[in-house]
C-alpha cells in the first residue's frame, strides 16, 4: 500500500474541438454526430493526480460512472495520470441520474472499491452539463473536506495535511487567492488554470519514468480496468438513477429570440468607403473627435 492513495473522478464528454463537434443549424449541439472524449477538466484533474504520483509516489485510481463506452475516458486519463487502477461504474440502473444520484454512486464506489482514499480529485465542471455540483456533492457524502478552485497544492506527508491555493472570483469586487490547510482526506476540485510543475531534476526524471509507464499502461488499459455494476458496488437502488434523483428535466425549448435591443445599420464588408465611415464612427464614440 502506498503512503498516499489518490482517486480521480473523470467524465466522458462531447469533444468541443473543431472538426469533432457538430452543431445543428439552430446552433444547438448535434450529439449524434459529435465524438466523445475525456472532458478537458477531467484531463486537468488527471494531471493533478499525476503530480501526486511523481512527488509522493501516490497510488492512483481513476473512476468514472457511465456507459461501457466510457472506458475510453479512463484510458485517456490513464495516459495523463499513470493510473494503477481504472474503475468503471456501469449499470442501467444508474441512467438518468442527476448530480445527487451520481454522487451517491461515486461515493459508494470510492469508499468501497478504492478503500482508503486520501485525496479525491475532480475537474472544475463538465463541459456539457456544466453544473459543477457532482464533485462537491460526492465530497460531502464521503465526509471529505471539499476544496474547490484549487490552482496549486502540496501534501505534507509527515503531518498528513494538504496545503492548497484556491482562486476565487468575487463578483463586483476582485479575485482572491486563498491559501488553506486541511488534514487528509480531502476532495479537490481542480481549477482549469492548474498546471503541474516539476522543479527539480529528480522530479523531472521521475516524471519521465512514469510518463513512459503511463504510455505502456494506456496501451493495455483493459488489464487495469475493473467494471462494477450496482449490485457489486452495493448501492441502494432507491438512491441512484432516476429513483434517487430529486430533479427531473421537465422541458427543453429553444430560447426565444429576444426583442431587438438595437437597430443595426447594415454595412457591406467589402466596401472601403463604408468601412471608412465605420472607422470614423469608432473614433467618434471613443471620444476622440479632436482634429489636429
Amino acid at each position, binding site marked *: 500500500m502506498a503512503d498516499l492513495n489518490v482517486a480521480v473522478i473523470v467524465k466522458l464528454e462531447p469533444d468541443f474541438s473543431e472538426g469533432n463537434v457538430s452543431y445543428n443549424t439552430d446552433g444547438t449541439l448535434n450529439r449524434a454526430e459529435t465524438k466523445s472524449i475525456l472532458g478537458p477538466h477531467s484531463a486537468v484533474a488527471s494531471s493533478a493526480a499525476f503530480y501526486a504520483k511523481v512527488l509522493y509516489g501516490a497510488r492512483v485510481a481513476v473512476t468514472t460512472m457511465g456507459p461501457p463506452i466510457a472506458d475510453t475516458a479512463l484510458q485517456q486519463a490513464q495516459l495523463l495520470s499513470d493510473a494503477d487502477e481504472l474503475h468503471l461504474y456501469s449499470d442501467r440502473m444508474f441512467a438518468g441520474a442527476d448530480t445527487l444520484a451520481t454522487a451517491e454512486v461515486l461515493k459508494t464506489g470510492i469508499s468501497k472499491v478504492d478503500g482508503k482514499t486520501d485525496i479525491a480529485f475532480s475537474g472544475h465542471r463538465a463541459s456539457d452539463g456544466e453544473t459543477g455540483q457532482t464533485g462537491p456533492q460526492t465530497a460531502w457524502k464521503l465526509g471529505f473536506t471539499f476544496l474547490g478552485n484549487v490552482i496549486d497544492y502540496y501534501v505534507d506527508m509527515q503531518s498528513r495535511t494538504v496545503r492548497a491555493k484556491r482562486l476565487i472570483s468575487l463578483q463586483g469586487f476582485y*479575485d482572491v487567492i486563498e491559501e488553506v490547510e486541511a488534514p487528509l482526506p480531502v476532495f479537490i476540485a481542480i481549477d482549469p488554470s492548474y498546471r503541474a510543475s516539476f522543479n527539480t531534476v529528480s522530479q523531472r526524471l521521475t516524471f519521465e519514468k512514469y510518463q513512459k509507464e503511463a504510455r505502456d499502461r494506456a496501451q493495455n488499459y483493459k488489464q487495469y480496468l475493473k467494471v462494477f455494476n450496482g449490485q457489486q458496488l452495493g448501492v441502494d437502488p432507491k438512491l441512484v438513477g432516476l429513483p434517487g434523483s430529486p430533479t427531473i428535466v421537465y422541458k427543453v425549448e429553444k430560447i426565444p429570440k429576444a426583442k431587438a435591443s438595437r437597430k443595426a445599420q447594415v454595412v457591406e464588408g467589402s466596401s472601403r468607403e463604408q468601412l471608412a465611415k465605420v472607422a470614423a464612427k469608432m473614433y467618434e464614440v471613443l471620444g476622440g473627435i479632436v482634429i489636429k
Partner: protein
Amino acid sequence: MKYQHLYVVIEHEDGKPLPVSLEMLGEARRLMDGYNKRYSADEKVVAVVLGNDVHRLCEDLIFYGADAVIYADSPELLHTRNLIDTKVISQIATNKELAIKFSGAPGFVKPRYMFFSADNVGRQLSSTVLAELESGLASDINKLVIEDLEIKHQHKTRGEPMIYERTLEMYRPDFSGFLWTTILCLDNRNPEIEREYHPQACSIIPGVFAPIERDSARRGTIVDYAPKFDGRDLRVKIIGRKIVKSAVDFDSKKAVVSFGRGIKDSPEENIKMVAALAKQLEGEVGVSLPISKKPFVVSEGMSSTYMIPDRVIGTSGRKVAPLLYVAAGISGAMQHIAGMKEAGFVVAINPDEDSPIKDECDIFIRGRMEDVIPLLLEELRKQKPAIEVKK
C-alpha cells in the same frame, strides 16, 4: 405546513453584499409577492447571512426586499469556508425555532425554496448544502416561475398524471446558449420509492435579475442564530488571503474587441488580426464562452493568452460596458449578450445576417472577419493621424 418560505443565501465581502445577493433578493421578492397573492399565503423571503460583525448588512437586506434575516455572527465565519458554512446553513434551514420568530405559521420543517449564487462560492456551497439536506438543486438559472404543474413521470408518479402545486420551474440556458432546460425538483410520489424532496433549490447566474430599489422604510425581523460547531468542523484553516487583479483589464479600457467561433477558417491569423484591431483601438480582447474551451488548434502562446476563461464575456465570465464593443465572428448567444449589452456602441462583423448579434449591434458589417478586419484596420490607421483618441 412543513415547507415554507424562500431562503436566500447571501454572499458578501466584509459586510458589503455581492451584487448577485441583492439581485437574488429582488427576484425572491417578486416571486413571493406573486405567490402570496395567488395562494392567499404569507410566506417570507428570508435572507441567510454568515459572517463576522454583519448586523448592519442585515438591516440593508431588509431594505432590499427580505422579510426576515437570519444571521450567524462569529469570528470563525469571517471568510467563507465550505465545510463550516455548509454546516451552519443546514442548521439554519432546518431550525423551526428560528422560523417561528418571523412567521406565526406552525409546522416548519425545511424551506420550500432556496437560492444560492452561481459563482465560485455559491456553486459549491449550494451543492454541499443540498447534499446535506438531501434535496434537488439546479444550477445556473436565469428564469424562475412558480406554477401548479401536471406531471406524468415514470418514476416520480409511476406514470400516473398528478398535480404538483407551487412548483418552482427553474430555467437554465445550456452551454450553447440556444436551449433552455427547465428543471423541477419533485417529491417521489410513486409508492415504491416514496420520498419528499425539499427545498427546491437553485443557483442563480449573477447579473441576470434586477434588485428592487432600496427602501429604508421597509421593516422586517432580524434573527440572531448562535451557530454550533466543534473542532472538526473548523479543520480547514485559512493561512493566507491575497487580492489579485486579473491580467485582463476590461474596466479601464474604452474599447473591447471580442471574437468567437467565427475565427474557425484560420484561427491563428484571425486572432492576430483581432489583437491588432484591439491595439489600434487601445482596447482589450474578449472572447465568447466556446472559445475558452479551446476548440481550435493554435500556437501555445495564442492559446494561453487569448483562449482563456479570464477573457470570457457573458454570464459565465465578465460583464463589460465599454464605449465601443466590437464583436467579430460572434453569433450572439444570450449568455454573451448579457455580458456586453451595456456597451455604448456595438459593431458586429459577421457573414450571417440572421445571427442574433444583428439585433444587438448598432453597425452590422456583413462579411467574414478575415476579409473585413484588414480593410477596417487600414481605414482606422489612415484616419488615426487626423484623429486622436482622448485619454
